[in-house]
């Protein structure tokens, strides 16, 4: 019996039948971490003592008061603040930072009876696509340890793929949940902007950031999203709309559903393996009764440059708070305030973060604002309109999640534009604010590929229904990386 190969539903049944306890599931998480994390390097901080105590408490909860995720372990991306558990954003700037409150999403994990076992690695302040920008460690892809897990939620995706925890939370500003999910062969959902509260998510680009779940199966993902969604008075951009039970949308029936395939998503810059996997996926979806048609999202190409200007501009403002005064790193031996700011920030931030702060400051500065920032905002409107037009005719839009499978650690570190281009198919979704999922759809040389399913605003249910129907009709999610084999017990 391999515990974390079970779905949430199966684990709940085991808990119900007292075949396993929350304490045992938590022990399993720490045992797995102990066994494989020396290789995978997904975790930055562990909360073993509190997690075990909480698991013991949760085992006493009467069965009729338990939700679908009760007593199950979870890992949390290190830009989501967790009370009493070090939260660093994988930056030297926040080394030792000990949050005094919980992010709303973290609190909702607690409310759902989940057990936070630790914090997972990421690119510093979520800026990057390989988790190589972490100040602390480089996470490896569980399918091949020489390859990156993707990013920025690389720790979140790798921890699930390696069977260290059954679920994690990530965050997605330009693809940071979906791209690592694709690279690691797991399921990652970026919800509609406003679906999940951003309170306590350390801000990168506030008009783009969303927290979302990374899991092994679509059903688990739907459970976890229902648990963390909802309006929050502490985040006025969170929407006051009903939170559906997303799992109830998983009917397996997609007959007559209209699916658009964006020609740009199979065009220039997209590798053959990704293209072919999606073409095969189209056949699967058609065999299930969906009607697939080709569409155009003509501004796709411009989403990438617009995104870098907008997200960096927002970041330059958001990261102004790191001043060495109120929390975080502080440069030593500085005599005056302005030098303290400058030295603290020069020493506390890594190279990519500094680059983006300066890019954003430049795009917002006098004389360049209209040419760069405002221009990018107008292009954002056109990218959003592309989706609005597509959704007049189609229920969902599909394409590859990323142009290629994972690349080798160190391979692209000096090739900035190629690194950025790995997000060309995920970024438009953030600009438009619509929801999208990545679900495993194939392999290339032993490395996983992801199918991206994009839906209308607040229609995660249809996205999940399509992803689930595809998953159930294929075997990709059943393949496990070798490193999971130690799970036998």
């Amino acid at each position, binding site marked *: 019996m391999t515990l974390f190969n079970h779905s949430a539903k199966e684990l709940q049944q085991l808990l119900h039948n007292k075949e396993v306890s929350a304490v045992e599931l938590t022990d399993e998480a720490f045992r797995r971490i102990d066994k494989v994390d020396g290789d995978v390097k997904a975790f930055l901080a562990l909360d073993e003592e509190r997690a075990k105590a909480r698991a013991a408490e949760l085992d006493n909860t009467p069965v009729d008061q338990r939700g679908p995720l009760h007593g199950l372990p979870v890992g949390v991306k290190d830009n989501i603040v967790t009370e009493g558990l070090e939260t660093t954003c994988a930056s030297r700037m926040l080394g030792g930072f000990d949050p005094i409150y919980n992010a709303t999403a973290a609190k909702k994990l607690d409310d759902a009876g989940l057990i936070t076992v630790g914090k997972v690695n990421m690119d510093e302040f979520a800026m990057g696509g390989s988790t190589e920008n972490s100040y602390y460690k480089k996470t490896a892809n569980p399918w091949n340890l020489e390859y990156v897990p993707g990013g920025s939620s690389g720790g979140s995706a790798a921890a699930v793929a390696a069977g260290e925890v059954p679920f994690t939370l990530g965050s997605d500003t330009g693809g940071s949940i979906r791209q690592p999910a694709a690279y690691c062969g797991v399921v990652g959902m970026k919800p509609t902007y406003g679906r999940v509260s951003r309170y306590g998510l350390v801000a990168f680009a506030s008009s783009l950031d969303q927290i979302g779940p990374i899991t092994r199966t679509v059903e688990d993902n739907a459970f976890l999203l229902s648990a963390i969604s909802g309006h929050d008075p502490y985040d006025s951009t969170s929407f006051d709309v009903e939170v559906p039970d997303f799992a109830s949308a998983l009917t397996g029936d997609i007959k007559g559903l209209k699916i658009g395939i964006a020609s740009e998503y199979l065009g220039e810059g997209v590798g053959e393996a990704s293209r072919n996997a999606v073409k095969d996926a189209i056949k699967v979806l058609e065999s299930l009764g969906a009607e697939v048609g080709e569409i155009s999202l003509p501004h796709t190409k411009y989403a990438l440059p617009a995104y870098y200007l907008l997200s960096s501009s927002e970041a330059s403002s958001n990261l102004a708070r790191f001043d060495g005064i109120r929390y975080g790193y*502080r440069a030593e031996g500085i005599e005056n305030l302005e030098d303290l700011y400058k030295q603290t920030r020069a020493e506390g931030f890594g190279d990519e973060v500094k680059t983006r702060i300066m890019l954003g400051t430049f795009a917002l500065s006098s004389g360049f604002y209209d040419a760069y920032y405002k221009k990018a905002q107008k292009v954002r409107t056109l990218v*959003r309109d592309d989706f609005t037009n597509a959704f007049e005719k189609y229920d969902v839009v599909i394409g590859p999640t990323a142009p290629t499978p994972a690349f080798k650690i160190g391979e692209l570190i000096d090739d900035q534009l190629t690194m950025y281009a790995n997000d060309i198919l995920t970024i438009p979704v953030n600009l438009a604010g619509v929801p999208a999922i990545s679900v495993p759809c194939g392999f290339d040389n032993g490395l996983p590929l992801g199918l991206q399913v994009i839906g209308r605003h607040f229609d995660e249910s249809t996205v999940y229904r399509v992803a689930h129907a595809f998953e159930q009709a294929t075997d990709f999610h059943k393949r496990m990386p070798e490193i999971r084999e130690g799970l036998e017990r």
Partner: protein
Amino acid sequence: MAVITKDQVKHVANLARLAITEEKEVEYYTEKLATIIEFAEQLNEVDTSGVEPTTHPVPLVNVLREDEPAKGLDRDLMLKNVPEHEDGMVKVPSILG
């Protein structure tokens, strides 16, 4: 003309309160930023006349709530992560002279 000069990089670094002063570092970031800005120039191919800018993906206007007093965070707790503090106050270096 270069899309961004070394002097502009120094200016931007100063605005962003980043100590980037060594000539080698300035050169490094000038090159890096120029690559991205040149790439971003392709936005000029797009005709955006008459297009409204999008600041936010899902339109929301004037989110209001009842003005109900609630307890804030405890001061001692808030000082927990402050690098230097004294008598319940945050300490900063001299700001005059």
